[in-house]
């Protein structure tokens, strides 16, 4: 009885990690992507961040503005890495790779979650870059091992969440051209309707309401709490984790149901 229950779970985790492993192997063969990805967060922190910190127009309480946006920029670059995962999936569909995976006995949800985790590891490389930039720019970081671990978990989950969201869109639109359009249309509102680069307190009421429905807001809140020394969560970490985790699970289930549509 117990083995019949445990085996599928064990097998599911194993297959998920197999997919992740091979995504990472691809990255090892060609890691120029990781380097080019470092550019965008650097621009946001060094230019955008410096200018607004200097102008003093953003009121971020007792936290300096540059400190305030460091976690926001991390969340943003995780979002950007993850949201274009759909392109990758469509590419694999235009080749026959998706079809071949779908004709294998591996559980669909494992194929989807494995991709999500690999987005997560790319997200971790972004975290490394942001930490480096933060050090250079004098952001006061919280270096406790527990806080660092929580940052890693949050980044992994956030990347899984948004890459799975992206995969679902890919399953609907199916072509690269349409995906590029939809991807742009979704990414910017997700980013701007969040607390990534300004506090929700300065938003008009309607936008604040939307931002509270945006999972990115909770990702940023969790990251800000864990990353910065002396920062307090706006929503409570329990709520942050609950929103992120439940959304991720929901999206993976939906993604697993939609993924076979790519083969047709």
């Amino acid at each position, binding site marked *: 009885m117990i083995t019949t229950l445990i085996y599928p779970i064990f097998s599911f985790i*194993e297959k998920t990690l*197999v997919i992740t492993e091979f995504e990472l192997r691809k990255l090892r*063969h060609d890691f120029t992507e990781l380097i080019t990805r470092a550019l965008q967060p650097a621009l946001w922190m060094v230019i955008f961040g410096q200018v607004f910190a200097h102008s003093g127009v953003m009121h971020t309480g007792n936290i300096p503005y540059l400190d305030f946006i460091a976690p926001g920029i991390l969340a943003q670059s995780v979002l950007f890495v993850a949201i274009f995962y759909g392109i990758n999936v469509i590419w694999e569909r235009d080749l*026959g*790779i998706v*079809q071949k995976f779908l*004709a294998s*006995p591996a559980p669909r949800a494992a194929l989807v979650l494995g991709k999500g985790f690999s987005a997560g590891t790319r997200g971790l490389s972004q975290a490394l870059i942001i930490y480096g930039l933060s050090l250079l720019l004098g952001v006061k970081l919280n270096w406790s091992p527990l806080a660092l671990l929580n940052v890693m978990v949050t980044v992994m989950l956030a990347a899984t969440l948004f890459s799975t969201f992206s995969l679902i869109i890919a399953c609907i639109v199916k072509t690269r051209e349409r995906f590029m359009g939809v991807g742009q249309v979704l990414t910017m509102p997700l980013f701007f309707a969040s607390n990534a680069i300004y506090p929700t307190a300065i938003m008009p009421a309607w936008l604040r309401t939307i931002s509270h429905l945006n999972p990115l807001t909770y990702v940023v809140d969790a990251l800000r709490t864990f990353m910065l020394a002396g920062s307090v969560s706006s929503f409570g970490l329990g709520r942050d984790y609950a929103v992120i985790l439940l959304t991720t699970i929901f999206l993976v289930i939906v993604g697993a149901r939609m993924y076979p549509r790519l*083969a047709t």
Partner: protein
Amino acid sequence: MSDSVLDIKALTRRFGTFTAVDALTLSVDAGKVFGLLGSNGAGKTTTIKMLTTLLPPTSGEAFVAGCSILTQTVGVRRAIGYVPQAVSVDGSLTGYENLLIFAKLYDLPHREQQKRIREALEFMGLSGDGGRLVGEYSGGMVRRLEIAQSTLHRPRVLFLDEPTVGLDPIARDAVWKHLMNLKASYGTTLFFTTHYLEEVDSYCDRIAIMHLGKMTALGTSRELKDSLGVGAPTLNDVFIHYAGTNLDSGGSFHDVTSERATAQRLG
């Protein structure tokens, strides 16, 4: 007397009002080579997609290695290998890694994985190339790697959708030599689609010809030629007779683009 490993009963697939496959019924014996012919858009790929559980049929039923494609999809997937028409190995991984990922996904025992991969590379004439990135392979090598990948778990039925499209004659011969070895060594049943009639003549035990979703002929190459009667009909004559001469029947823009893209990547 061999058992049938593939039983298709009135298999039908509609897309809206268009019937891509219309009540297809046939069976294939274990260890045989079966060729499915037809012009572009005749329903060959749709048939293969249904048999590999990628596309649910609108009606009808099929059993692959004793498992129903409707209710026992995981059983079907364990029993089959599938080489899609498009290139299905990952160019940014090495040949070895492409095989390793499938060895793991198909639950090959850990002790056996390395041995099987080595054997598969050797079997497909790729022993020296396992460590190279697939992006550097030639078209024929890519196809052989795909076949190696799809047969690591020793499937009972191997589905191949136009396995030799876009390959030069030498590469085509090499692919077929390896496929026939596979059949001889492991008793694998081959079910494939193709446009190349001479392949069908040389390698197929039986042939079916499809036209606009319907099966219009079924038999050995000899039987089909004889069915035309007088003269000395070639398989070309048979094809024209059963698959129709309508030049405009063939395939959507999407089908044609993806086929050409495949040919380009392999060539």
